[in-house]
């Protein structure tokens, strides 16, 4: 779209006073006769241009700064084998060393469980909204999905706490935290799946119906199949979103420095909680180093999911 406006104004980037107004040479002459207003307008135009570029670079400052901080302070621990194989058992804040494997595995296991619950609910809800839903129920569902997407993670955590711990008397665990993450992930999956399903042309549904294919088979084998890669992308982005969530873990899944595969009993190791643990002693070089390394590891995991998601979206999209 805007490419066209660029063609209209090839001189956009040139020296301000000489900028060709739209309408070309004749237009410029006509405008020049109008005197100073033309000049004032051009000045404004240039100021606007400068402000927009400035905004962009302003936004880039924290990004570069954050990435630089995390990489420069955390990268070298990631080079050691121990980081990827060990845990933090018996390692105090002022001890160097130890690994993050327990937390990496824990985080992956927890988001895996989250996805296991949230993805079916999310996809089915999106299927309802796009393929079945009409009238009041669809509106109500769509509205609550919006509300759910706005629920702060701390509120989701409090809710699970109120159900899991206060009402049922169960203890905090990795699974309880995963349940809170489910609440945060469902709206992401619903919205992205919904968007993908809407991109499937109605002609394909018609084609299937006209072959005498029942609706549910049409939805499963034609609509979901066509939207498949887009849905996967949405799921991965959803996982990436909840992977870095810390508040529910703080309330529901106390940290352990050991390997722990049991989501249902006892404390559970995760990367955000490992960061949180070492943050308490960030004045100590050993703890600070571990903290930044864990943060970098978390960013890498999140980015990896994002990149895989985008690659799938790119290659999986149906070529028209």
């Amino acid at each position, binding site marked *: 779209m805007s490419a*066209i*406006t660029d063609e209209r104004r090839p001189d956009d980037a040139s020296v301000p006073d000489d900028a060709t*107004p*739209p309408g070309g040479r004749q237009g410029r002459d006509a405008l020049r006769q109008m005197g100073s207003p033309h000049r004032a*307008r051009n000045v*404004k*135009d240039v*100021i*606007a*241009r400068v402000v*927009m570029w400035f*905004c*962009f670079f302003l*936004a880039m400052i924290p*990004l570069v700064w*954050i990435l630089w*901080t*995390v990489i420069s302070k955390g990268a070298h621990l990631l080079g050691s084998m121990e980081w990827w194989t060990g845990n933090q058992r018996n390692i105090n804040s002022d001890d160097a060393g130890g690994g993050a494997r327990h937390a990496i595995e824990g985080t992956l296991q927890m988001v895996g469980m989250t996805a296991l619950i949230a993805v079916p*609910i999310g996809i*089915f*809800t999106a299927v309802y*909204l796009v393929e*079945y*839903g*009409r009238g009041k*129920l669809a509106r*109500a*569902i*769509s509205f*609550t*999905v919006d*509300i*759910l*997407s*706005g*629920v*702060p993670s*701390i*509120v989701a955590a*409090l*809710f699970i706490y*109120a159900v899991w711990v206060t009402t049922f008397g169960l203890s905090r665990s990795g699974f309880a935290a995963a349940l809170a993450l489910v609440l945060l992930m*469902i709206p992401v999956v619903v919205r992205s799946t919904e968007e993908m399903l809407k*991109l499937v042309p109605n002609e394909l549904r*018609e084609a299937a119906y006209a072959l005498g294919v*029942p*609706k*549910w*088979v049409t939805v499963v084998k034609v609509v979901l199949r066509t939207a498949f890669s887009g849905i996967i992308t949405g799921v991965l982005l959803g996982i990436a979103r909840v992977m*870095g*969530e*810390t508040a529910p873990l*703080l309330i529901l899944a106390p940290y352990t420095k050991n390997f722990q595969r049991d989501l249902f009993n006892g404390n559970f190791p995760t990367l955000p909680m490992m960061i*949180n643990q070492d943050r308490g002693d*960030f004045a100590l070089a050993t703890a600070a180093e571990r903290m930044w390394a864990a*943060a970098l590891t978390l*960013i890498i995991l*999140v*980015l990896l999911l*994002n990149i895989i998601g985008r690659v799938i979206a790119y290659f999986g999209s149906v070529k028209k």
Partner: protein
Amino acid sequence: MSSVTGVSATDELPGPDGRPPLSGDAASTGRVGDRIFGGAATLSGVVVIVLVSLIAVFLIVQAIPALADNSANFFTSREWAPGGDNPRFGILEFLWTTVTASTLAMLISVPVGVGVALFITQYAPAWMRRPAAALVDLLAAVPSIVYGLWGLITFSPFFKPVQGFMEDKLGWFPLFAPTGISGGTIFFIGIVLAIMVLPIVTALSREVFDQTPLAHKEGALALGATKWEMIRTAVLPFGRPGVISASMLALGRALGETIAVTFLVSALADGSPWTWSLFNGGETFASKIANNAAEFSNPSKTGAYIAAGLVLFVLTFVVNSIARVVIERRKAFTE
């Protein structure tokens, strides 16, 4: 489609070709497979409604006993001493900190975010658009705990002299009065929140700016408008509802942001005097709850925190509902 079917125009989600979706009742038949699959889809949707309702119900039910025992005014008290025989707690401080920091975040992130969106859609050279958009999205991919660390350890020492300078020059103004607190001030938290929600404002604004009809833009240019005038007369008016709803969603996120704020806040000592200054400390709803997760020992104490969480829930609910209404209006307007 029509009033007779009981379906109004707004709840039809038109497909990409502009036609309503093929969700006619008779496309689905009485087949077992159709009934099971359609049932599962409906059930999932209903589960979502039930979940959201349960959030409200559970928070309310568990907050009520604590609120009943509370001997201070929940909305106007600045005390926070739940538990014990005579619990006294109120949310005024959290409300003030949360709303002020989030408002400040909006004041920064909305203009900058719109600027970035305009840059990406209107000003950036063609080759730069996708990478620039991806970089801003990258900002959204950074987990909030990392913002917390960065703010706490790297950014806050850098900000101290800036705050000192402002207190020096603008201290006569109540909002900038010195309080002796540096680091986790409301002002500082507002800035970090602004950075965190910037990608939300940018992404949604970018989307609506991109949809500005070419005819509007050409119309403005054909009248001899400069690029900026074209943006002001065609792009911005078209995108306004989108920007408003984007800001609301971002505000909702800022209000509820937990871990970064938890890392940054300077909690105030009990009984510290009231000040309007943005350079004061103070907990937000989310940080207060998160910081005291270990204190959830007895029901009345927990109830007080759940009550605070409920207020936060209502706050974000209202803000997100406004965003939704604006989006619906726009839909009705463009259809």
